[in-house]
């Protein structure tokens, strides 16, 4: 839930709002339902497996080559996502709060946090997420509450935005918003009990969908189109409007830092997942071996795009890939594993 919610401060809604318009919140709700439906069988399969994680499932499906291939795909997708998020966070920090600071300095700080956070055990990241979640949710809810008064519900009309066809057509890219769903699927191997894997994942996906939808609604009320389609960081813009009387305004600096903290947890988890997947597949002595190289790769990816616009375009262009990795890959592995078992029996 923490990893999902940390994405709220990222520019995840920019392109959906540009293409779907006022119907984005409906599209998000549908995407959430779809995510739960696709997550369920993967989590149930792992629960039935009794031990191991998605990489072990890959081994069942395709043997050692399959395991390595899946680890490489996961690693590549996660490193790309980490790089894009690192760059976006650095750009956001510089744009909103520190205009004279070089971008590389912000990148160094973010990368340092991500490397340190990802080098520990999975259970440490889980504890960190649990510790941070109430604060993160509180700040998001406060910002939403503070922005409601700026908007008019009629700005949401027409409800379907650019049309139902567009809402249904953009479901695949929207599934990329649920990429952190890989975390429970990869970390379940270290869990003491797996029996809540399905339920806890579904609850987190459902809660996040509701939160994202609510954020989108309030955002579109306060920043209706066409303005709303040109704002890269919706939650930050909403936070700049939050006023609590004469003495509580312009507190966006605090929100920025709390959400940067959430992003650091997100990056730690992403790099950790990538390192764990590769360590499992290639029999590294420990996942820590892979942290520094993956971090360097992510930083390289982050610095590749020449400008902020390109970062956003590239990140969104990769959305179908993320959706395929997060939801398509586990389904494919389940099917292959089943076929292999059937083949072995015959």
């Amino acid at each position, binding site marked *: 839930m923490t990893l999902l919610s940390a994405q709220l401060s990222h520019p995840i809604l920019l392109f959906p709002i540009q293409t779907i*318009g006022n119907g984005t919140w409906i599209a998000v709700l549908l995407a959430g339902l779809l995510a739960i439906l696709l997550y369920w069988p993967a989590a149930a399969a792992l629960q039935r497996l009794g031990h191991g994680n998605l990489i072990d499932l890959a081994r069942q499906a395709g043997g050692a080559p399959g395991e390595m291939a899946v680890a490489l795909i996961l690693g590549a997708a996660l490193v790309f996502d980490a790089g894009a998020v690192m760059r976006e966070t650095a750009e956001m920090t510089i744009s909103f709060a520190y205009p004279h600071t070089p971008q590389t300095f912000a990148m160094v700080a973010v990368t340092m946090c991500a490397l340190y956070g990802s080098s520990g055990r999975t259970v440490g990241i889980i504890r960190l997420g649990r510790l941070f979640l109430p604060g993160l949710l509180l700040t998001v809810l406060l910002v939403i509450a503070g922005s409601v008064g*700026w908007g008019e519900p*009629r700005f949401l009309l*027409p409800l379907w935005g650019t049309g139902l066809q567009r809402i249904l057509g953009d479901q695949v890219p929207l599934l990329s918003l649920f990429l952190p769903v890989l975390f429970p699927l990869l970390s379940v191997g270290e869990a003491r009990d797996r029996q809540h894997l399905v339920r806890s994942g579904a609850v987190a996906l459902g809660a996040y969908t509701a939160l994202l939808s609510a954020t989108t609604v309030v955002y579109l009320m306060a920043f209706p*189109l066409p303005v709303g389609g040109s704002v890269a960081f919706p939650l930050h813009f909403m936070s700049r409007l939050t006023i609590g009387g004469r003495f509580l305004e312009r507190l966006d600096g605090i929100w920025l830092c709390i959400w940067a903290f959430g992003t650091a947890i997100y990056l730690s988890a992403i790099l950790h997942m990538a390192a764990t997947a590769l360590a499992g597949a290639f029999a590294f002595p420990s996942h820590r071996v892979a942290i520094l190289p993956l971090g360097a790769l992510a930083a390289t990816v982050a610095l590749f795009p020449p400008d902020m616009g390109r970062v956003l375009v590239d990140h969104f262009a990769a959305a179908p890939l993320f959706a395929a990795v997060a939801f398509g890959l586990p389904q494919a592995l389940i099917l292959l594993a089943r076929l292999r078992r059937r083949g072995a029996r015959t």
Partner: protein
Amino acid sequence: MRRRRLLCILLLPALLLTACWDRTQLEDRYYVIGLGLDRHPSGKLLVSAQLAMAQLLAAGLLRGAAEPTESAVACRTLSTVAESIPQAMRILNASLTRSLTLKHLRAVVIGEDLGREGVEPYLMELWRHPESRGTELIAQARNDYAYRLLQECQPLGEINLSRVPEGYLLQQKRYHLAPPVRLHQFMIRMGVSGADPFLPSTALNSGIDRDPVELEAELESARAGELERVGGNRVEFLGTAIYRKDRLKGFLTVDETQLLLALRGEMGKAYVTFPDPITPERKVTLRFQQENLPRYRASFRDGAPHVNVDLLFEGEVLAVPGGTDYVPPAARGRLEAAAAREAERIIWPLLDKLRMWEADPVGFGLLFRGRFRDRDQWLAYKWEERVKELGVDVSVKMRIRRYGLHTGPDRTRGGR
């Protein structure tokens, strides 16, 4: 392990020697509290920045100045001509020993010339600026340049410049003489399809130095700069400036402003004085309160958009110099009808004006958005061109609820 520690020890000074690019001390800045935007005769932008002079303020027991050296608001206004606001800031910085910052910008005033030409490019610059948040109050100067209003603004009893916009905001919220509008609200309504923005209007009153006996007796509803008064701040906030998208179209009086707010459901309380229906040579004063939001019914009549609006006010009788007892139902009914007529007397010309200006500050267009299948269909309808065909019927109902502290007529002698 030792190598790792050595690496950290070597890297740490590198980190400490860098950073702090954005670090600035409080005393190294000038805080721009007010910003004025005008059209210079050359065609460029005339930007005026009103700076707070913190060093002239007392600060409790520990003072920066031994005695407050200003009996007026502690500020200075600087102006320059430039192509854009950031360029203007750079030019102004050249003569200053501290850097200007818009982090505490509280108010933006737009000159009339610039308003009529179109403000979008300049306000977009401000909205995009990382130091601006869109929560600044924004106002329209009437019959004047914004820089003059900034220079002349000396509210009674104020020394701290930051109190000035806050004080005006408080007054606007309390008395609804002018609508409080922030930059974000203005920009949103400017861009959205189905509504137009508006601003509080402000102007210099050139008649405040007269003798009180020279004040006009016959009062009509005033616009900014027209109030019959003597003394106080030359700058007054009164009435509304109506925009059609990003261009200024005209100004409303204070009564029209209050009914515009009523049509939007934002009127709150207003004090209205009108002829007593039973003793016409005298005037009654009522406090109008808009307890319920207006009820709208949007429809198409012969292809043209039409809206029916039901306004409901609650009234409190504050002054009845004619001595009539308005408590009995029959008399009360007459008073209620007279109050409703008084409101309608202002609303119809208001709606005519808005139609003439092809502006929709109420946001009637938003009522029609939901009737279209999707955004493309709505945009194809081109509301901005249809607004002049909009028909509006307003019905006003008044319910007298209270009579002040006395329930009888205003007399000290005689019985009921």
